[in-house]
């Protein structure tokens, strides 16, 4: 009985190492976690629903809720998990996704991100270099020009910032191996504690 335990432990430790080895060579592990990510683009809210670091969530029910849970818009996500809903009045929008199988997630767009309906001109999106070359020589003081520039800047900034925000979001989703090892460490620690208390209980009885 006495010499069995260490042998046991050795074999089990080998098994754990094998599991860890198999896991670490497989594709980056992903959280089993539904996430929504959304951005305001002009007068629309565009976003995606996905299982963190893995598959998009198809056909998930998307609801945009204003303050007091008023439903502002509703839709379903497409095959790639993306969705578009019209932005409502400038209030906090809570975008709630429901995959229908017990997964749901929420993402909040703050009121200040929603500037109200702005029509993004097609020009800068189609040819990004053009506005600067065309416009530098002109008088920017006229009202229509100012609006045009504002809208163009907003479109360009949004195009550049969106990938960054998506990347940042992906960072948050990433499963860290430190956490995995930490979790295993906790379990081993608890195992030790349990062994300690149970052996004491047995000694007393």
């Amino acid at each position, binding site marked *: 009985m006495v010499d069995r*335990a260490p042998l046991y432990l050795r074999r089990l430790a080998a098994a754990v190492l094998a599991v*860890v080895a198999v896991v670490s060579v497989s594709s980056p592990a992903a959280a*089993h976690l539904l996430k929504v990510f959304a951005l305001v683009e002009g007068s629309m809210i565009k976003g995606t629903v996905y299982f963190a670091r893995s598959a998009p969530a198809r*056909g998930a029910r998307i609801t945009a809720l204003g303050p007091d849970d008023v439903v502002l818009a509703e839709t379903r996500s497409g095959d790639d998990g993306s969705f578009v809903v019209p932005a409502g009045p400038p209030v906090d929008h809570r975008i709630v996704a429901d995959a229908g199988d017990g997964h749901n*997630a929420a993402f909040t767009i703050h009121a200040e991100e929603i500037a109200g309906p702005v029509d993004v001109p097609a020009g800068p999106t189609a040819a990004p270099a053009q506005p600067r070359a065309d416009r530098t020589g002109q008088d920017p003081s006229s009202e229509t020009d100012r609006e045009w520039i504002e809208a163009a800047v907003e479109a360009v900034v949004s195009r550049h910032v969106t990938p960054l925000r998506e990347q940042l979001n992906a960072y948050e989703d990433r499963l860290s191996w430190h956490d*995995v090892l930490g979790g295993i460490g906790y379990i081993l620690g608890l*195992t030790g504690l349990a062994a300690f208390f149970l052996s004491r209980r047995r000694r007393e009885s």
Partner: protein
Amino acid sequence: MAHLVDGVLSGEVVVGGTVLAVAGVGWGLRTLDPERIPQTGVLSAAFFVASLIHVPLGPTSVHLILNGLLGIVLGWAAVPAIFVALVLQAVFFGYGGVTVLGVNTVVMAAPALICHYLFAARIRAGGAFIWGAAAGALAVAMTCALVGGALALSGREFILAAKLVFAAHLPVMVIEAAITGAAATLLHTVKPEVLMASTAPLRASDG
């Protein structure tokens, strides 16, 4: 999928699940033989890691659960093992909500226990692969049914939810059947007392 999140279930289901889980964890710890603590810890770690391996599949993504394996090897000790792993998954990775830990424990540990009573003795008697595979598949199927049931009790459409969960887990059942069958065969051949001890009379090995 097996990990339900906060805000999906009704209060009654959450409370009911928590009560059952506390009772199960308590009984599991009370009857835990000190000799079996290392196994419990290692299988708890295996369960913890298994949920992190993730396969994108159709509209969703799935992971292994391994509750059948925990059930046939650990018996009642599977309840605390699963509970500890779920706590860590919720804290570290946000898998499953914190308030619904009880429900998640029941959803995964109850099938483990049922498999233990159905299959542990049969595996010992022989045909380890077949009965182990049956335990692996059935445990996942029962977990799906319980998830569907928990959603239904909270006012979701049961058929829709259960169908979604079940369909996504068919491949998981196949994989778990293979894994649990292989593990049962290995244990039966190499270390039969691992399976033996799990159904030994409670604490009778003391002294």
